[in-house]
């Protein structure tokens, strides 16, 4: 199955890219999506994650075609 990953703000700058596309065979968690996309980098502290534009915990299981997003604490308003 195919998973799209988006990065925002300082995380996007740190990684030097805004998107990834992953092809996976088994269901995996959001944490595993990060590890697969960024094997060289441990999970940043305070990392926030969303799947299909809803906040999720890192042990949330992703499904085919899901859009996963990772970003730092929000600072709007």
């Amino acid at each position, binding site marked *: 199955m195919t998973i799209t990953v988006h990065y925002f*703000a300082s995380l996007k700058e740190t990684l030097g890219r805004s998107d990834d596309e992953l092809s996976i065979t088994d269901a995996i968690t959001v944490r595993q999506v990060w590890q697969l996309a960024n094997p060289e980098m441990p999970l940043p502290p305070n990392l926030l994650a*969303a799947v299909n534009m809803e906040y999720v915990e890192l042990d949330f299981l992703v499904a085919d075609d899901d859009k996963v997003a990772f*970003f730092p604490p929000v600072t*709007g*308003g």
Partner: protein
Amino acid sequence: MAVKIVEAAFDPWQVLPAHQQSVSALAGKFGATSVFVGTLRDFNEGDEVHGMHLEHYPGMTENQLEKIIANAQQQWRLLEVLVVHRVGAILPNEPIVLVAVWSSHRGDAFDASRFIMEALKSQAPFWKKEYLLAGGERWVLNNTDGYQAAG
């Protein structure tokens, strides 16, 4: 309810009465309007700021703001809610966010506007990068707690 993400500078004191006028169900029925406007200051954490870039997650931003408003509407009796938020390049003195709540009674309006503002600050996917007068730029790391006279 209305949620607007805008890329150009907006005047809350024009947007707000225009919206109020456009919602015909409000006429004669609202007794209380509670409004919050957040504006870019020319200083932050001891440094002079000459501009800001506001990034967001298109789609998720609107989803989250609509959820926050729906949540407020379940807790208080509200007649109308308007949220406007800037994205992109912002200059000092320009409004960043407008939250306006119309209700029959002032308790509902006050409570709901503050709730929406705090929820927006902690849940809506916006990120601020400041440009400093002394040179350089920095991401704002965290929003502060609005109940302790900060942020």
